[in-house]
């Protein structure tokens, strides 16, 4: 008759149902203006993402990972950060950069294969795209340690997927965050797939959220297509982090509507019906229905928002495509702070 000693509970948070109605959880307090601004950013993110796919098909961008379906998870969380906070995206986070006001033309420039697109503007604490899955997690933990050491009122958010949760980096980072009670929010976008590997072959745990039990801090599951739920969960977790309450793991349950990247063909491994089912849960639609109910949305407003987004993306594309080609010497300039003797010899080739 063994004795029971630990009984952790994992919860799921939702604010809106699929029809945009408020559920039992009260919506976060946001003014009408704020709600509209956020919705417009969602529209911008989708517009940007669709344009990137088009440009890739036209051979004007390299491989690109679409965020279709994940806009609420990305913008809902990033918009809950404050100036001074630090964000650590993976590679599928156009929505995070857009939420922060990252120059759109630089995003396009980066995906066209030009490092200069990731020269993050001064004062914007977001890291460049991180490709090796999960490796950004300990970086965020280190930044949180630094913030704590400096006694800055700042927290870090780190983005990763269901696949990323399988990497040792996730474990080691989460564990350190628990031990040092660090101001960091672990934001997992569980979009059900890691390329062709479905969520249930990635881990046998019922949720990703419950993995926080292993580290002695709170894990919570959130409807990741519910912008307001993601916003609320992240805002609360960030506030807690800054009050010294330690880390939180947030699992956003969402769905990758597109292929993994433009180099992938999801029809090889993914049942079409599954994707169809998720269409009804579109995060933009849900937010729109909510705004409509609040009297903030009209057809005209939608057209305006779309037109504005298109204009911004047009402008970004124009700027990105008119940038001069990079100087081959840059390869040398940015490897170390200064040239090595060998590089000084090699650079003469240019």
């Amino acid at each position, binding site marked *: 008759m063994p004795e029971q000693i630990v009984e952790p509970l994992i919860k799921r948070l939702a604010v809106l149902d699929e029809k945009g109605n408020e559920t039992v959880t009260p919506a976060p307090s946001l003014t009408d203006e704020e709600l509209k601004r956020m919705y417009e950013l969602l529209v911008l993110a989708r517009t940007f993402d669709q344009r990137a796919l088009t440009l890739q098909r036209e051979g004007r961008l390299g491989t690109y990972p679409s965020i279709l379906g994940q806009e609420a998870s990305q913008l809902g969380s990033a918009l809950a950060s404050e100036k001074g906070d630090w964000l650590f995206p993976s590679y599928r986070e156009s929505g995070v950069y857009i939420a922060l006001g990252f120059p759109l033309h630089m995003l396009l420039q980066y995906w066209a294969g030009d490092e200069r697109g990731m020269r993050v503007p001064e004062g914007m604490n977001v890291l460049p795209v991180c490709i*090796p899955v999960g490796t950004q997690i300990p970086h965020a933990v280190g930044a949180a340690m630094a913030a704590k050491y400096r006694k800055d009122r700042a927290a870090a958010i780190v983005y990763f997927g269901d696949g990323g949760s399988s990497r040792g980096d996730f474990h080691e980072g989460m564990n350190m965050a628990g031990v040092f009670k660090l101001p960091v929010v672990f934001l997992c976008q569980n979009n059900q797939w890691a390329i062709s590997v479905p969520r249930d072959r990635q881990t046998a745990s019922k949720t990703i959220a419950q993995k926080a039990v292993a580290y002695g801090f709170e894990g919570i599951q959130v409807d990741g297509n519910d912008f307001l739920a993601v916003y609320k969960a992240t805002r609360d977790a960030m506030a807690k982090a800054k009050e010294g309450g330690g880390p939180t793991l947030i699992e956003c349950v969402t769905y990758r509507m597109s292929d993994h990247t433009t180099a992938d063909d999801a029809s090889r491994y993914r049942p079409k019906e599954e994707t169809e089912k998720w269409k009804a849960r579109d995060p933009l639609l849900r937010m729109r229905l909510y705004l409509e109910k609040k009297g903030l949305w009209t057809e005209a407003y939608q057209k305006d928002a779309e037109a504005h987004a298109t204009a911004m993306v047009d402008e970004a594309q124009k700027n990105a495509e008119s940038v001069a080609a990079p100087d081959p010497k840059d390869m040398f300039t940015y490897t170390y702070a200064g040239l090595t003797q060998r590089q000084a010899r090699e650079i003469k080739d*240019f």
Partner: protein
Amino acid sequence: MATMNAVQALNLALSEEMERDKDVVVLGEDVGKNGGVFRVTEGLYDRFGPERVMDMPLAETGIVGAAIGMAFYGLKPVVEMQFMGFIYAAVEHLFSHAARIRTRSRGRFTASLVVRTPYGAGVKALEHHSESAEALFCHMPGLKVVVPSSPLTAKGLLLSAIRDPDPVLFLEPTRLYRMLKEEVPEIDYTVPLGKARIVREGTDVTLIAWGSMLQRAMKAVEGFNTEVIDLLTLSPLDEETVLQSVKKTGRVVIVHEAPSMCGLGAELSALIAEFAMLHLKAPILRVTSYDVVLPLPKLEAYYLPSIEKIRKAIETVLQY
């Protein structure tokens, strides 16, 4: 005999060997239904089932670690590392365990396994998708490193690698996956590990290359009386073939895709400078990528050794 590209040749090697030897299993990310991101394992999942073609959680350390455990048990795992840029998480298991278990257990346990991975730049890929880090693995005694340069060598070397009693890192030049087609026999033939091949005979210069750079080297030597050695196995090195050629020609150009500093070109040069010095007529030249962080696609073409640079190096040594 069918004409096929390297992807097809590798796929053929895998399916033939799995048919022959039930101990051979394939594991990695997206190797199952998806058939691998480059389709090298295409069809294997349907043919051999999920028990032998295993889609693993996204965890390179654990994948290679688990493969080592399988090898201890007696299976012959063939791991697909999705890109060489992601192998770094598995370095500890390869160096500290795969390479050392034979020594540690005085032969009682071994790690007969293969880690296959696409490597090399020139396909306009994302960051970390273009590594050419072969030299790192050549420095670790206990590991073997093999690089085919064509469909024919790809199949024959992969079969040898799977049957080899030691752990083998098997590098597949991404750029060549679909570039060349060749007649590849659908029979059981092998290309032996540890043996370089002379792809072109010549008397004035010895050019040494492998994998991704071989095609470029072959174009560069046109019009010169240059002997070209395709290493095929990078570690252990076929020193005899290299030294014999150098003793004949007296001039050496080494071409590789990795940066020069501590690349495999350095080892070849040092080998020659120790054992064939008195036959040399000219400095030993290396034509490599620059000693910088691998650039993204916009600068990639400037980074890699060009045919022109290789030709210039040949011309330079010929001046002596």
